[in-house]
């Protein structure tokens, strides 16, 4: 426990507190009155209002589109299901710059919709909402669908036998069992859309701003640190509330359900209705997820002889000091280190959380570990810059900052993947081993490790994919001579010229393929008891 706590204290709480304090403390005196001042500004109220309603709308839309998908993935068996499950997860681990770009290529000027029907959605709220569905589809499918696949269908059938209508049987048997999972997924999607940054910044234009974007503008562009600090606190409070709710639903979810192996619940669709449902879900995936990704690939190939890909290896584009292709190597190196850190910290934390004598405090830490998902990446990035610049922790000039920031985002995924599996390990096994004289280390190696190995691999895979795509914090601390892949994409997009745009598309495509391969490998490793992602 000590190590995860120390890690979060030093690399999360301290930098965030430092940047907030920089904004709110003048000459050693806290200026808490600023909170009221900021809250009464009409512009800020507008931002709060927009943040909330677009998150609500995005969440509702995502559920509407993704719940049928969750059902289909859980209950139907069809060829290519594994690949498709990996494909719908790709957007989730893609950096938001790439997602934004994919959508811009689809709905922006000269995009596919513009060419076909003269419809442009950029700078409208629709582009933002659709991108959020694209982005979060997998959260619903994996969280809800994962559980749905393991619910014993015989319970519902039994209710039917006893005379319940299909609707009633579903409402009284399946829905209550699924409820907590749906709630958990809803809250996660709400959290991700509430703190949305890249999507809103790229697709929203200057008119739309979420809290997260506003924190970025106030810190990075307007340099109004007090306002940024107040907004950070507001976001912190909101995110804590969401996470507290989430922790509560998760605990309810872990209450005893009769679960069966997912492979026995799925079967081929039967009858016109089921085939139509499958077709509908596949069509929505094709339009909302595959199409934007395909546009990205098409744009990257939109020059003879793979010119955009070949340009990636040339050093004199003027945008970087190094050929853009090196960003791929940088990203992979950073992601490996970040994964090691995240698995270590997350694994230790998960192990601590499963201990039977874990008290209230430790369980509270569970929710706390999720906080980095919801706290502004900009705040973390700037916090790193101003807080970690003195011995003994003078890391500012060091490359380790980037993987550390990425690991912060990876840890929650590791914890959430490991926790259910670790909790399922029968405690009596550990006790028996200990009674027979095994050292704690040996107990872990002989009892826990074999059971959690696959979960550990999945956790590592997710941490790796998330680190690869992390953008918000990395962009502030990555050195210009050592850009990561998402940072390189953003930089290329910021420069005018067809070749720069093409290279950005090519790099995004490469990143997408790497993520897809990682996810396909994970699909093969799925545990019999699902985690939450």
């Amino acid at each position, binding site marked *: 426990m000590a190590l995860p706590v120390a890690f979060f204290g030093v690399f999360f709480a301290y930098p965030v507190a430092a940047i907030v304090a920089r904004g709110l403390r003048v000459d050693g005196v806290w200026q808490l009155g600023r909170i009221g001042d900021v809250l009464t500004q009409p512009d800020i109220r507008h931002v709060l209002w927009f943040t909330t309603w677009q998150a609500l709308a995005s969440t509702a839309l995502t559920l509407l589109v993704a719940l049928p998908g969750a059902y289909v993935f859980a209950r139907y068996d069809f060829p290519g299901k594994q690949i498709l499950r990996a494909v719908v997860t790709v957007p989730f681990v893609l950096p938001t710059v790439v997602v934004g770009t994919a959508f811009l290529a689809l709905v922006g000027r000269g995009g596919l919709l513009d060419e076909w029907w003269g419809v442009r959605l950029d700078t409208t709220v629709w582009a933002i909402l659709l991108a959020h569905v694209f982005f979060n589809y997998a959260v619903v499918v994996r969280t809800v669908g994962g559980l749905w696949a393991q619910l014993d269908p015989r319970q519902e059938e039994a209710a039917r036998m006893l005379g319940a209508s299909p609707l009633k049987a579903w409402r009284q048997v399946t829905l209550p069992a699924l409820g907590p999972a749906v709630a958990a997924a809803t809250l996660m999607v709400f959290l991700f859309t509430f703190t949305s940054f890249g999507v809103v910044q790229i697709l929203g234009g200057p008119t739309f701003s979420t809290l997260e974007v506003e924190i970025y503008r106030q810190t*990075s562009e307007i340099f109004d640190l007090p306002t940024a600090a107040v907004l950070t606190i507001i976001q912190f409070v909101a995110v804590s509330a969401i996470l507290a709710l989430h922790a509560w639903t998760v605990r309810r979810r872990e209450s005893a359900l009769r679960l069966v192996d997912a492979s026995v619940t799925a079967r081929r669709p039967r009858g016109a209705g089921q085939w139509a449902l499958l077709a509908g879900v596949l069509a929505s995936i094709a339009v909302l997820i595959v199409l934007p990704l395909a546009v990205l690939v098409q744009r990257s190939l939109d020059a003879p002889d793979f010119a955009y890909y070949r340009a990636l290896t040339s050093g004199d584009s003027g945008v970087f000091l190094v050929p853009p292709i090196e960003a791929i190597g940088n990203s992979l190196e950073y992601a490996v280190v970040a994964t090691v850190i995240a698995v270590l910290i997350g694994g*230790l934390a998960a192990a601590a959380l499963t201990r039977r004598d874990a008290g209230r405090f430790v369980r509270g830490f569970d929710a706390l570990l999720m906080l980095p998902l919801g706290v502004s990446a900009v705040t973390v990035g700037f916090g790193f810059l101003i807080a970690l610049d003195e011995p003994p922790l003078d890391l500012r000039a060091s490359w380790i900052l980037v993987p550390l920031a990425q690991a912060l985002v990876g840890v929650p995924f590791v914890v959430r993947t490991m926790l259910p599996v670790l909790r399922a390990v029968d405690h009596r096994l550990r006790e028996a081993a200990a009674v027979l004289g095994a050292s704690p280390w040996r107990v872990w190696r002989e009892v826990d490790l074999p059971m959690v190995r696959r979960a550990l691999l999945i956790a590592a895979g997710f941490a790796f994919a998330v680190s690869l795509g992390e953008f918000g914090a990395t962009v502030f601390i990555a050195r210009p001579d050592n850009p990561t892949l998402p940072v390189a994409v953003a930089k290329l997009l910021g420069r005018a010229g067809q070749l720069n745009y093409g290279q950005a598309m090519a790099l995004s495509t490469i990143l997408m393929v790497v993520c897809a391969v990682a996810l396909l490998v994970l699909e093969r490793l799925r545990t019999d008891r699902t985690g939450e992602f």
Partner: protein
Amino acid sequence: MNNKKYPAVCVGLGLVLLSACGSSDDGESSRGSKTVTLVSHDSWAVSKDVLAAFEKESGYQVKVLEDGDAGQAVNKAILTKDNPQGDVFFGVDNTLLSRALDNGLFQSYEAKGSDLILPEYRADEDKHRVTPVDTGDICVNYDKQYFEDHKLTPPSSFDDLIKPEYKNLLVTENASTSSPGLGFLLGTAAQYGDDGWQDYWKKLKANGVKVVDGWEQAYNEEFSGSAGGKAAKADRPLVVSYASSPPAEVIYGDPKPTTAPTGVAEGTCFRQVEYAGLLSNAENTEGGKALLDFMLTKTFQDDMPLNMFVYPVREGAQVPEEFTEYGPLAEDPETMDPAKIAANRDDWVKSWTSLVLK
């Protein structure tokens, strides 16, 4: 959890952290006193041979950190000023100068050749915390073809822009996130005064001005006169850009046009000056001073225009022919005292945002 139970993993993390420290130490030692680090925004550029000549002459290796767009680079430099990322910072302009000075970003140093800087560009002359390096005008550019086709005279003043014949033609940048956007706002404030500019912007908004976030988007995606805009089938023939943009269209034209496809609306210009300075707490102050001296040499000042598309500030420095022909500096640009900008900038940007964007 008691971490004694997990010695192996703790050693693992220890190694990671150690290797991190190790590598940062390597960074420090290779930096040494013979390397001088320049922190700048993304638009920094210099000819390779010019820089190589400086390195050879002075014995310093120049390392450049391009750190985001202009505003972001300044803010980051201020946040890290106690332990700066480099020795010299280049790229703070007159609209943000006061923020840098008030926050103690720079230390005093009067660069060699300061006496040769044209008087109108000098600033902070009693303390010499900054050195002017280049200048340029932020002006409305127009698409010549469009105005020919429509038999319309291009606008030439701020007043023209609110006339009905120019309705829905202008695209500008967000004043809170883009430096030409801010320059244009300050230009209108200089022209119409502290009370009048808001009224002007109301009329401009009613006349269909479009606001986008950054210069790239405005110039290359919305403006019909630029090469990028033509490719993107852009439809706005007026854009807030620079006086040096028309020469850039000629120099980078492929094939090179015989004359500039765009022009500058003379009466809409706001004068921008960019400064460099020696960072407080710089590690290599001697190298930093040498680098500042270098930026005022005739070699560097002559080289600058075609690299960064700005004008020199040094007396007698050469301005390329394309510049004098297609994008001369305005005769009588709007200007504003940095102190006045400092006092009003944030309030103006806030009111502008509420007025124009919401």
